[in-house]
């Protein structure tokens, strides 16, 4: 009988401890978390594999240089200056993928729009509006047909400049996913503030919980439960500048050549491609409420959008809960 009790204790007590300890393990991947500043934002990388985190971080730093169209060291900046150059696989891949999307969906968002977008970036810094003639000239040098690719050689004709802004983060996350696919990583969250990769499955099997920040800075618009996917948000958020009391958004409407006056305030797109989510969030944002309905019923992506009056536009099958 003593032996029986003894074995009972030996089995039950450790079992109890193990079960309780396992409950106390955090359900999310938090063990290998790091933050780096790339692409004008803070990027946080959380994976369950130290090596995968390091590889992702190093790739992101390389892409940061490749896609930079504002800094002297940026590869895109140099291409804009030299007009023709042999480019890295990263920059070539980004340019090719973005041109494919603009051709498939709409040329309202194009990587060849640098002449206009960089003009407005300059305006945001100097706080002086560009002249009408400048905007008009810049609009004439937009068009993906002005970009000529031959293998890794890229040349730009006329005044065409590339601005990677509407595609870079999403494409970078696509590349991060490729790295994770090859690694032992089972679960990861890579967040570049406005674009996010939710990778694999959480250890407890539950969906990822995403909170969409309120553009006015006060809390959240709502939460979304999703399985692994890419998501990107476009909105006014903090990136705007004021001239003569008027706020100018950082997203440029290529149909007018002026900062978007969209009546939407925040658009988040969920899908299985990073670059598509990044591109579509910008496209839908610029389109405003009058064009939004046709985006809400797609099988390829899901949308959660909000307008100035607080009205929400949510795709069917998206598990969204308003705050």
């Amino acid at each position: 009988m003593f032996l029986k009790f003894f074995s009972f204790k030996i089995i039950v007590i450790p079992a109890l401890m193990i079960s309780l300890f396992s409950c106390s393990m955090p359900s999310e991947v938090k063990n290998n978390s790091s933050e780096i500043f790339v692409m004008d934002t803070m990027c946080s990388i959380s994976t369950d594999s130290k090596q995968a985190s390091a590889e992702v971080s190093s790739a992101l730093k390389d892409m940061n240089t490749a896609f930079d169209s504002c800094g002297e060291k940026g590869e895109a900046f140099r291409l804009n200056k030299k007009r023709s150059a042999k480019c890295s696989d990263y920059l070539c891949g980004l340019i090719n993928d973005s041109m494919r999307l603009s051709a498939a969906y709409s040329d309202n968002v194009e990587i060849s729009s640098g002449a206009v977008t960089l003009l407005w970036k300059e305006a945001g810094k100097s706080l002086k509006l560009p002249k009408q003639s400048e905007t008009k000239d810049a609009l004439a040098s937009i068009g993906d047909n002005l970009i000529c690719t031959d293998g890794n050689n890229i040349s730009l004709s006329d005044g065409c400049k590339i601005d990677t802004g509407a595609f870079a983060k999403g494409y970078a996350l696509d590349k991060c996913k490729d790295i994770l696919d090859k690694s032992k990583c089972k679960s990861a969250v890579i967040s570049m503030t406005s674009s996010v990769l939710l990778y694999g499955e959480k250890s407890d099997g539950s969906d990822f919980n995403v909170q969409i920040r309120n553009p006015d800075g006060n809390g959240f618009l709502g939460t979304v439960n999703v399985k692994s996917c890419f998501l990107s948000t476009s909105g006014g958020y903090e990136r705007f500048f004021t001239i003569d009391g008027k706020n100018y958004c950082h997203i440029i409407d290529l149909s007018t050549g002026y900062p978007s006056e969209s009546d939407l305030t925040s658009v988040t797109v969920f899908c299985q491609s990073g670059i598509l989510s990044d591109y579509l969030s910008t496209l839908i944002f610029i389109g405003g409420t009058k064009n939004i309905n046709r985006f809400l019923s797609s099988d390829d992506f899901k949308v959660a959008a909000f307008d100035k009056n607080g009205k929400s536009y949510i795709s069917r099958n998206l598990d969204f809960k308003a705050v």
Partner: protein
Amino acid sequence: MNTRFLKLSEALIIIIVILLCLLIIFLRNGNNGKSAIISINGKTAAVIPLSKESEHFSVKGADNIFFTVHNGCIYVDSSDCTDKICMKTGKINKCGESIICLPKKVSVTISDSTENTDVIVG
């Protein structure tokens, strides 16, 4: 021979083990989900999980002010501002607590709205 299923002493041992486990859970999960939201000029500049081991960092847009996350608390460890109120506030870790640096327009608030949240977008 005692025919009871559990002796008093055995029951006691099991209870102690359970309490120990609960204590460990409490210590490990005490700060899970809590985040420090660092804002510059009223706009969120960074959301730092307090579950981090220990970290000394600065935030883009806020020059010469340094934060440290340690033991589930966050504090400003150095700043070149005039009044140093941010440093004097010391460590914070409770939901709703805040550190404000007026000269730099920087604020740090603790939020647990991120509980169960995997990511914040926007």
